[in-house]
């Protein structure tokens, strides 16, 4: 099983987020980058399949700053990496387009990606790539079984339901978080990663069909805030509950 994994180097939504002075971008100061959480599950799944079935795992990253995430994937167990130093804010077409071009000479049985990115939350790149490559595909995958060149997978629906589906290879799957328990990077892994290939592919995407007009903090109705130290807050909560006959 030769597997390509798409991994995004993405800011953590829990880090400090501010709007840049142009009002059209996020201020880079304060952002903490790491591998996109969904992609962490995708790379883990790929490595598990490789450990069971053999083959090669190639990780692909888009962005001039994505080295750390690619190195992390190599340290986890990917065999080599392809870096595409193109910076895209929002337009997933551009991302899918350059990935398609960068992997055109790769022989693969499966492409794995995360269901969405933790920063833009688009849920687009994987499916767009499947469309561009005319591959069978499925999203929000919660389990993968491979037997006799056929994939049986489950995908997440609403309300706790799932559906079981079958797909031929090659195909593209985007994985839902929680599909596995991603491993930690070991010291040995980090050492080994240094000797692994990271190839850079220079590409230029076509013109974007999207234009960001404005970025801003959403207007929200705010809760009535309870002030004071923890004891005071607890006291106020109990008062509220008493008023409603809940304690």
């Amino acid at each position, binding site marked *: 099983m030769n597997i390509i994994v798409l991994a995004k180097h993405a*800011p953590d*939504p829990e880090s400090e987020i501010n709007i840049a002075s142009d009002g059209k971008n*996020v201020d880079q100061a304060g952002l903490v980058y790491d591998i996109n959480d969904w992609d962490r599950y995708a790379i883990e799944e790929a490595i598990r399949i490789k450990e069971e079935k053999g083959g090669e795992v190639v990780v692909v990253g888009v962005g001039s700053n994505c080295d750390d995430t690619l190195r992390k994937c190599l340290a986890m167990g990917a065999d080599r990496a392809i870096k595409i130093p193109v910076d895209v804010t*929002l337009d*997933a*077409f551009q991302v*899918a387009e350059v990935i398609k071009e960068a992997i055109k000479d790769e022989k693969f049985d499966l492409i794995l990606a995360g269901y969405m990115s*933790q*920063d*833009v*939350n688009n*849920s*687009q790149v994987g*499916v*767009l790539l*499947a*469309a*561009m490559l005319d591959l*069978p*595909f*499925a999203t929000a995958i919660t389990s993968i079984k491979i037997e006799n060149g056929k994939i049986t997978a*489950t995908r*997440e*629906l*609403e*309300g*706790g*339901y799932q*559906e*079981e*589906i*079958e*797909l*031929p290879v090659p195909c593209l799957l985007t994985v839902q*978080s*929680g599909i596995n328990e991603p491993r930690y990077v070991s010291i040995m892994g980090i050492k080994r990663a240094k000797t692994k290939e990271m190839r850079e592919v220079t590409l230029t995407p076509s013109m974007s*069909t*999207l*234009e*960001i*007009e*404005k*970025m801003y*903090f*959403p207007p929200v109705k*705010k*809760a009535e*805030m*309870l*002030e004071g130290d*923890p004891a005071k*807050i*607890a*006291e106020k*909560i*109990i008062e*509220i*509950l008493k008023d409603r006959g*809940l*304690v």
Partner: protein
Amino acid sequence: MMRVFCIAEHRFGELNPLSIELLNLANTIKGEGSSEAVVIGKDVGKFATELSKFADKVWKIEDENLEYYNPELYNDVLMQLFGKEKPDVVLIGHTSQGTEFGPYLAAKLNAPLATDVVGVDVTDGLKVSRFMFQGKIMVDVKLKSLPCVLTVRQGVFKEGVEVNGEIVDSGISPSREASRKFVKYLEPEVGEVDISQADIIVAVGRGIEDASNIELAEELAGLLGGVVAGSRPVIDNGWLPKDRQVGISGKTVKPKFYLALGISGAFQHVMGMKDSELIIAINKDPEAPIFGVAHYGAVADLFDVVPELIEKLKEAKG
């Protein structure tokens, strides 16, 4: 003036109410154009009738092989329809189905795409509003050409007027076999506690930090006569079983009291608890979107507040 097509969604014999919300949006942006629903399945007459109340036209695409949703076949029949009937805008629900076949359709139509849309403005071209960073940032984006494809968030476009349009049989059926096959549905996991029946829920999020801290929430829930539930990261990490998950992909709850501890308030979670009678949120991050849905909030560390709550509840009980 635009032709706005809305792809309806149904499962287990029920129309997803989001399909009507898509039509509400279509009716507000169509101008002198039309709102047109498309409903795909094996036997969709009942859905077509429901949709026709809010659509100028309903296109039925019926075939034996369309009994179960399949993104390849959905794309196949929609491309046939759009080959003859030219859309300006295609609206799809931002659901497990819509996030799957929506981007695929956009690529095949070579159309600009925006996902998880919560606002649409057509005064000067077509502009959408959507969130980023799990609800912390909002962005207005212009789509530079039509046709375009939008996946739309549920619960935003609930208000609408009836237009009572016509139902048309498209005569379209799949032109190919799908390489992906539907096997079966899997029922939700059932555990010892049904959180959707609880009056009081102590819900924990990523802020609970570790499985060993669930005990703390259990103790508080015990004193309140409630149960412990969790948001997605808690379930993903295996700290609580799947049947305790609150949110779109888990359970929808409406307890008398919902205490959100260390939950940031991503949309997926909020949709599962926003109708609770009383919501109190404790989170270290003053920008956490959960404060937008809570009635009361405190910017504090749950590990400081929860022990105080436990102590005070014990005192009160004597």
